[in-house]
Every structure is written in C-alpha cells, then in structure tokens.
C-alpha cells in the first residue's frame, strides 16, 4: 500500500486555477508524470490539499472542484483494494479516468499553444496594417456612402421649417432642381448641408436631396468628405474618362 503523497504546495506562477482540469494538469506536470501512464489516484492527495487551500467565492465553481475530488477519492479506493474483480461502477470509473486523461492531454496541448501565443505578444510581434486614412467617397460606389448622406440630410432637416398650410413659395419639380444643381456645379463644388439649408421648406429640402441622389445615380456627380463628420462636398464629375 502506498503512503499518501501530499508533497509541497504547488509553487506555480499563477496560483489561481480556473477549473479542476487545470489544477489536475498542474499536479501531474509537477510530479512529471506521464498523463497516459499515471493513475490519477496518485495525485488525489495533492489535489485535495490544493482544493482545501483555495478560497473559492463561487459555490458553483467549488462544486466542480469537489466533484472531481470525489471521483478521485473513489478511484483511489479502488486502486487500494487490489484483487477484487471490478464492479460495474468501478469499470465505469476506470473508463472515466481514461476520459479524463484524454481531456488532460487535449487541454495540455492547447495550453502549450496558448503559451506560445502569449510569448509572441510579449515579445511584441505586432504586425501593423496600413493606417486608416480619410475616406474619399467615390461617387455612388458604396451603399454606405449613401447612408452617410442620409445622416447629413436628417441632421439638417429639423432646421428647415415644415411646409406651411398655405403654400407661399414655389413648388419645385425634380427636373427643375436637377437643372439648377447641375448649373451651380459648373461653378464649383457645393457643400451638401448648405445646399439643403437653402430650401424654404422641408418639401423643397426633400426634392433637393433626391436630386443629389439622382445625380449620383447617373454618375454625374461625386461626393467627397475629407474627414469623418466633416463637410460633404458635391462636385461634378469630369465628363470624359473616369
């Protein structure tokens, strides 16, 4: 009969074990035991010692540790009574031991890989990508850019008076706005928000905005925004090429 092998407490760098598997692995490794040869019963005493020394706030977590402890004890008791043919329950337990070994081995492999990854970052292995730059929105290419325009539009809409009950201003058709904007663009880029703010009421603002979208769709204009949340400029596209 072997004497209980308690040994010294684990002098490891990270004394906090997240789960029973991690603790068990640390014990097996301390004893330099081969996962596939060792009877887990061998580390039972050391395991119990560690669990007793732990301060576990979370009862659920503690239960996990205790469950493993109970099985280890049971396993040890079988090993201490040689000669008896194993009962069904004991056969079960031996199967469990094999399963735990497999899990330990798998866990060990990942832990080792984790260590290598950690080493990489600690030696600063960062691979820097090209920097983020101000995005120059190309005309109507990305649906995202239309979302940006919508945001700009929504942000100014509230600053324009609603359409009065008695219509005083003129009613714009889309074509009229298209012509007007195209004409203005010949003199240079227009700032989108300013253009919309020129509207006398919200209906006109909507027509203006739709006209801009329509010009985008026809690839007659591009929109540019030098920086996020900066002014958005609408400008005519060069008729040739592009």
């Amino acid at each position: 009969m072997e004497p209980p092998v308690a040994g010294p407490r684990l002098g490891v760098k990270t004394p906090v074990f997240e789960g029973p598997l991690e603790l068990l692995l640390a014990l097996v490794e301390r004893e330099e035991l081969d996962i596939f040869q060792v009877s887990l019963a061998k580390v039972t005493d050391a395991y119990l010692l560690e669990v007793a020394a732990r301060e576990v706030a979370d009862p659920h977590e503690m239960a996990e540790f205790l469950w493993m402890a109970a099985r280890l004890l049971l396993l040890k008791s079988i090993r201490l009574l040689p000669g008896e043919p194993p009962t069904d329950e004991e056969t079960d337990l031996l199967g469990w031991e094999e399963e735990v070994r497999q899990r330990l081995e798998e866990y060990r492999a990942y832990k080792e890989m984790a260590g290598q990854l950690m080493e990489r970052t600690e030696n600063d292995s960062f691979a820097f990508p090209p920097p983020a730059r101000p995005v120059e929105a190309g005309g109507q290419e990305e649906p995202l850019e239309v979302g940006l325009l919508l945001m700009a539009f929504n942000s100014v809409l509230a600053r324009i008076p609603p359409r009065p009950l008695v219509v005083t201003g003129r009613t714009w058709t889309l074509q009229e706005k298209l012509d007007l904007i195209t004409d203005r663009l010949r003199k240079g880029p227009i700032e989108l928000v300013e253009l919309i703010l020129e509207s006398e009421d919200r209906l006109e603002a909507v027509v203006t905005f739709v006209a801009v979208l329509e010009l985008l769709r026809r690839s007659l204009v591009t929109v540019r925004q030098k920086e996020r949340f900066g002014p958005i400029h609408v400008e005519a596209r060069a008729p040739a090429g592009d």
Partner: protein
Amino acid sequence: MTEVSAAVEAILFSSNRPLKLRELQQATDSDRTAVEQALEELRLALEGRGVMVMRHHDEIHLATRPQYAGAVRRALRPEVSGKLSPAAYETLAIVAYQQPVARSKVEEVRGVNCESVLTNLELRDLITEVGRGSGPGQPKLYGTTMRFLQVMGLESLDHLPTPRLEASATSSERALTKNA
C-alpha cells in the same frame, strides 16, 4: 514581377482595410487562379522585406513584419492595447485551431465556463461569429479575425504554432491536424 502581382501590391498598399480575393479579382480583371499566383509571387518577392502579405481565409492585406514591431513602435508610438489573461490565450488557441467552434466545445476543453472570456475576445475583435451550428439552439460559432493575425504577428493561420500531442489518435489530435 508580373503585372497582376504588381497591381495587387499597389492595391494592398493603398487600402486601409483587408480586401477579399474576389475584390482583387475584379480590380485586376483576373480569375481566381491568376490572383492566387500573383499573391504567391508577391509573398516571395517580399521575403526579407519589412512588410509581408497577410492572409486570413480569403481576406488579404499587407502588414509590417513582426520582427520590426519595436522599430515601428519607436517611430510612431501607436496605442498599446490591454494585456490578455492566460485564460484568454487558452481560449484563443482553441478557437484558432478548432474554428468554426461553438462555446460548448471551448468549455469542454477548458473544463470551465468561457462565456465572459469569449465575449471579451469578441469585443477586442480577436474572434468573431462566423456562423451558426446545426445543433439545438443553433449555437454561435466562433472564428479568428484579421486582427488576431496582426496582434500575433502571423502571416496566416497556417503559421500558427503547431500543437505537440503525445497521444496517438485522440479526438483532439484529429481535430487539430485537420485544421492545422
């Protein structure tokens, strides 16, 4: 260097985000095989240089070589991201090798609840949801991100450190070699 390869280099150099293989095909008006060849050519041409081609599944980008991270830092003083816990590294290793992988599998390997670790890694953009499992409740499946490669300084997932498994034919080993 071939035309396509040079064009791909130019595109990657000027892009502030990873590009999909498909986008490179469209931009260079080439088929998939041609772009793959161009990428391989570029990869070889950049050997021994300060930048490298980085590839995460079918996303491609350029990145500085990890051995010059210190020099880049000294010159540009970029922001330093927070350190990861040992638990986070374990979880990352499992996700990297087993992807796409459900939380339940990660927890099976580590033997503890991994919900908060996974959430944390997701917030740091090191892992992301890459699909849904077919099992009950259609669990989220996790995979790594381009950011993961950048942080680890890896050219691609093929360059992950290889696991050393002593046992033969455990389920884990089969899974590991399959994904390596």
